[in-house]
């Protein structure tokens, strides 16, 4: 791939940082709020340098209270601002849960559209970083279950750059999930001159014909690795990066399943009532006769997130995905 002038090699962290910067440049109403987002640039440095350049009024270090952060962001949005809230870690979004599901999600509905909530709530999510309790959660299903919220997950640096800007530009509240394990992991070429796909669309990231593997956020990489390994054994996996969890973009999924007849869904969230459940239900309803096997789910087990020394056993990995592929093929 040739590197043009507009192209940079960036990490996911960098892509998000650049995307936030661009959004702030483009619209003076955009502001960032959260714990340690100012001088520190956030514990993951996603907001690095932004307070220095945009000032303390636009990059706001908040008191240590998540409900307060989201609740004041609601007020800011009502005043015409577009707040982007950082939740420090997935496990700390719960004190703000009430404000999110009862206020953020319902404000447009309650007000008959008079008070939209153009707010983004950024959540570094998922495990695999060797952290202590509450730092590796995957709370997406709970938000996707809540009408009024939109929920997306990025999986790579380029999407990070574009999707955060699109989420900020959206007039609806967006729960924006960032796979923290990927922040500084892989680099990719960002060409800002290439038009991005719309925000609420899924993407086939690898074509295949035997089994469709659905993933998002951190498991996209796992799925791609599985597809690579499967190819070595002569099995062709199609991998779809869902990107949007609510709404779901079922068209490319159903199109794929109609071809393959087999589906494996993988996410880090607990299997029970995770995104895989909804995908299984919808796929089965829409492709009942096309399915050769039931939709199989590879997720976090239905236990609390374990101590980090065994977290890789909790998390779906290449082998577990391949095992499910095997089981699907064996049906």
């Amino acid at each position: 791939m040739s590197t043009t002038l507009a192209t940079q090699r960036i990490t996911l962290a960098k892509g998000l940082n650049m995307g936030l910067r661009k959004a702030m440049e483009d619209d003076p109403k955009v502001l960032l709020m959260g714990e340690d987002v100012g001088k520190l640039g956030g514990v993951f440095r996603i907001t690095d340098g932004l307070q220095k350049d945009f000032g303390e009024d636009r990059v706001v270090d908040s008191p240590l209270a998540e409900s307060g952060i989201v609740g004041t962001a609601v007020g800011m949005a009502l005043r015409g601002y577009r707040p982007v809230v950082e939740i420090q870690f997935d496990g700390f979004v719960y004190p703000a849960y009430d404000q999110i599901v009862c206020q953020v999600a319902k404000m447009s509905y309650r007000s008959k559209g008079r008070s939209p909530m153009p707010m983004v709530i950024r959540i570094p999510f998922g495990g695999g970083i060797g952290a202590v309790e509450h730092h590796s959660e995957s709370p997406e299903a709970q938000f996707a279950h809540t009408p009024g919220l939109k929920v997306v997950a990025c999986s790579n640096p380029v999407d990070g750059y574009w999707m955060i800007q699109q989420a900020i530009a959206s007039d609806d509240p967006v729960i924006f999930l960032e796979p923290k394990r990927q922040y500084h992991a892989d680099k990719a070429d960002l060409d800002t001159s290439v038009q991005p796909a719309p925000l609420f669309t899924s993407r086939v990231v690898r074509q295949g014909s035997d089994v469709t593997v659905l993933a998002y956020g951190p498991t996209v990489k796992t799925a791609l690795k599985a597809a690579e390994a499967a190819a070595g054994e002569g099995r062709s996996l199609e991998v779809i990066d869902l990107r949007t969890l609510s709404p779901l973009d079922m068209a490319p999924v159903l199109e794929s399943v109609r071809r393959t007849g087999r589906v494996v869904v993988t996410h880090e969230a607990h299997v029970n009532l995770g995104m895989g459940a909804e995908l299984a239900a919808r796929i089965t309803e829409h492709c009942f006769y096309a399915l050769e096997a039931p939709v199989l789910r590879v997720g976090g087990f239905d236990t609390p997130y374990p101590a980090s020394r065994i977290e890789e056993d909790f998390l779906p990995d290449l082998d577990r995905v391949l095992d499910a592929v095997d089981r699907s093929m064996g049906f």
Partner: protein
Amino acid sequence: MSNQPIGETPGFGPDLVEVFGPSQRDGGPELVQLLTPEGERVHHPDFDRDFSADEVRGFYRDMVLTRRIDTESTALQRHGELGIWAQLLGQEAAQIGAGRALRPQDYVFPTYREHGVAWCRGVDPLKLLGLFRGVDHGSWDPAEHNFGLYTIVIGAQTLHATGYAMGMQRDGVVGTGDPDRDAAVVAHFGDGASSQGDVNEAFIFAASYNAPVVFFCQNNQWAISEPIERQSRIPLYQRALGFGFPGVRVDGNDVLATYTVMQAALQRARDGQGPTFVEAYTYRMGAHTTTDDPTRYRLSDDVEHWKLKDPIARVEVYLKRHGLADADFFAAITAEADALGVRLREGCKAMPDPQPMDMFEHVYAEETDELAAQRAGYAAYLASFEGAHS
């Protein structure tokens, strides 16, 4: 055990009673009052002001009409026209005092009981009924009145108010000295709400950012069946001191005092002096809502005691005693109230029901395909019945 005395605590400073004064049924010595229950005009060293006859008559009219809105709505509920109604009986002075102290550019975040404040903000009282009739979740346009929708989740709106005030700071409408520009926010909440984490977090954010917000707590002594003592063992307004901003307790049944204190607190906020806590000491004369039965948990004695402090009666006595209003004035207001009552009754009954398909509206600013499909599916389903019935 929860009623153990709060005793002497050597080493930890003076006894609570010394610090905060004895807890008094009638609000205690700290209560700011300008008009006694007997209608006598008294003065206060910090908060005082002259009122023209017109002003006082205006307050009186507002309170009478607000009460009529309330009694009429209660009756509508009894007749099955409303699902429920949150009564404000007894809290008219607190709400009119707070509402009239606002400037147009100020913004208000109400609970579900601020019918008098809504009145002051020019919200058509009929629009208050939508929520309680089950027609919608809120009928007025907040931006048109600078008056937010009713919030039912206790305390949530105090954070919205604080954030809105932070937005005002960023818009440069605080502390400029221009009276038509400088603005402030009022966060309404109740005594019970003062226990919610959100409300205390709102205090913290407001203090930390010195936001132009007035926390206006109507301490009506009850949170449904729980007396104020369950939420706080000292006078509520003192909560603010611990967060580093001033608190004051005003007689919430005294419209002159409430108005004066709120005007000062709002001006303080508009001037960039930051938040204030105003506790309007009042009493919920009615039930919590029309579905509540207060005889299960409180003594009628108490209610009788508070009847003597009626917020409207004292203004009436004052106006009459000083010859500031004649029989014509009172008759005109009664007529106006009667007309309002008729309008409410008829308007309520005539209110169009929502349509089933409205359910799908405004979930998002930008509707999703999947919701559109669900909507279409339900429309087709409903149509199938029409076919069946035709």
